[in-house]
Each structure stands twice: as structure tokens, then as C-alpha cells.
């Protein structure tokens, strides 16, 4: 009787390390509402706290769009991002002049993981931009970037 309960728990625990490479999204209502209306939820783990802070201080000119929000929300989301940010895992997160990188797609880790994707592929009409993670990572909106859910569109 006890075993029947313990077994699924044990299996779930064993499965955890396998999921660790997937950037599951910590629940946060403000982040979901404010940061997923124009694009998918980029995983907080993919930039470091310094980069997030810079981004959150410049939302009125956010990659060519106005993404400004009220100060209370902004502070809450900045805290959430800092708390869930990636550390060393993200690789190089400053540019040559030492300024924090604001794009995940410019981090060393991103470049390393996508070495095999050639320049012409990024420009396809079906992809448009490396920032369009969901074009190839079909489960990106859920934070799943594992190889088994990648399909590169024609």
C-alpha cells in the first residue's frame, strides 16, 4: 500500500534532473500579463539580473517599441526577474564595452547552442528573427527548449 504511493513520487523525483534543461516558467501574474502580449515569455533564467534591471529601466524604448508600464508593476516584475535570473549559466552577458546585454540572442550561451543554425535560416520569412524562439521551439511558450520539440520551418 505504502509502496504504491511512494513509487510515483520516486519516479517523479528521478525525472526532475531530466527536466532541468527545460526553462520552466515560474508563475508570476504580473510578468505573464505584461511580458507576454507582444512575444512569448522569454525565460528569466536566460539573462542575468544586471541585464534584466537595465531592460526594466528602459521599457519606453524597448527594442523599437513602447512597452512602458506603471512603476509599481515595473518594480514587481524587476524583482521577479532578478530572483529567477540565470547566473553563470548564461555565459557572457556584457558587450565589448562592458554594457549589459539586453538580448538573450546575443549571449554566449545562445550563440553556442545555435552554432549549427546558418545565417540564411534565421532570415527565412517563417522565422524572421532569432528572437522568434517559437518558430523552431514549438513548446517555447511553456519554457520547453528540449531537442525533441524543435522543428525548423521551411
Amino acid at each position, binding site marked *: 500500500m505504502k509502496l504504491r504511493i511512494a513509487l510515483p513520487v520516486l519516479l517523479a523525483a528521478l525525472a526532475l534532473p531530466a527536466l532541468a534543461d527545460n526553462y520552466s516558467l515560474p508563475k508570476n501574474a504580473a510578468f505573464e500579463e505584461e511580458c507576454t502580449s507582444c512575444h512569448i515569455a522569454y525565460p528569466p533564467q536566460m539573462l542575468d539580473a544586471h541585464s534584466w534591471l537595465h531592460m526594466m529601466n528602459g521599457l519606453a524604448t524597448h527594442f523599437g517599441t513602447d512597452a512602458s*508600464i506603471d512603476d509599481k508593476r515595473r518594480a514587481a516584475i524587476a524583482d521577479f526577474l532578478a530572483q529567477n535570473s540565470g547566473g553563470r549559466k548564461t555565459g557572457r552577458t556584457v558587450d565589448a564595452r562592458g554594457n549589459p546585454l539586453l538580448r538573450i540572442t546575443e549571449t554566449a550561451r545562445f550563440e553556442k547552442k545555435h552554432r549549427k543554425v546558418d545565417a540564411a535560416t534565421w532570415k527565412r520569412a517563417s522565422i*524572421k528573427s532569432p528572437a522568434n524562439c517559437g518558430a523552431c521551439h514549438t513548446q517555447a511558450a511553456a519554457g520547453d527548449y528540449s531537442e525533441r520539440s524543435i522543428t525548423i520551418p521551411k
Partner: protein
Amino acid sequence: MRHILLIAAAVLATNVYAETPRDFLTRFEKEAGAPASAERGARFFTTKQGGEWSCASCHTEKPTQPGRHARTDKAITPLAPAANAERFTDAAKVDKWFRRNCNDTLNRVCSPQEKADVMAWLLALK
């Protein structure tokens, strides 16, 4: 107990002030001090005003249909209330997006008249 009463009062207040799309037309017309024109709204919405985008670049020229973000390609649900019951029901949201999207398309805020005209056109779409 007092807290519960306060929460109950807050919930009631939110319900009382929940807006309908028509409320926005009324409000913008009042701010503009002139009646709206759906025809002007259609022209404003579908033509570029000096910037890279028009409203239609993301919301399409027929906003009863779903759109796509011109830069990121993300799907956007229809903007016209007839096709999407969630639209124009929350003043904070409506004000926020008018501010952002007008800035992106015009490099300035929209005037009350422009907002009233767009509202009148969106409400006329079936």
C-alpha cells in the same frame, strides 16, 4: 471582519465600474468635445502617419479578424468588440495600449478625437 468588508466593497466597486466598449466612445467624445466619425476612424487606423507602422500593421485592416505583431509575428486576437468580448472592458488596459501603440505609430499620444473616431469605427464593425 473589517478586512472582509473592505474586500467585499472593493469587489463590488470594481464590478460597478467595469466598462463596456460604448463607455469608451462616450468618454472620448466628451474629452474631445465633438462627435466621433467612424469614417475618419477607418482612415486613421489603416494609413501610416509618418511612422513605420499603421494600426492595421498589427491589427489588420479588418479588426474583426485576428492580427499579428508586425515585428515579432505573435498572434493578436481581434480588436473589434463584435469579434472579441474581452476588448474595451478595462480602462487601465485600454489607456495603456493607446499610449504605447500611438507612440509606436505616431511618435506621440493620440488625441481624444482620434481615439473617439477609432472607437466609433471599431464599434460599427460587425
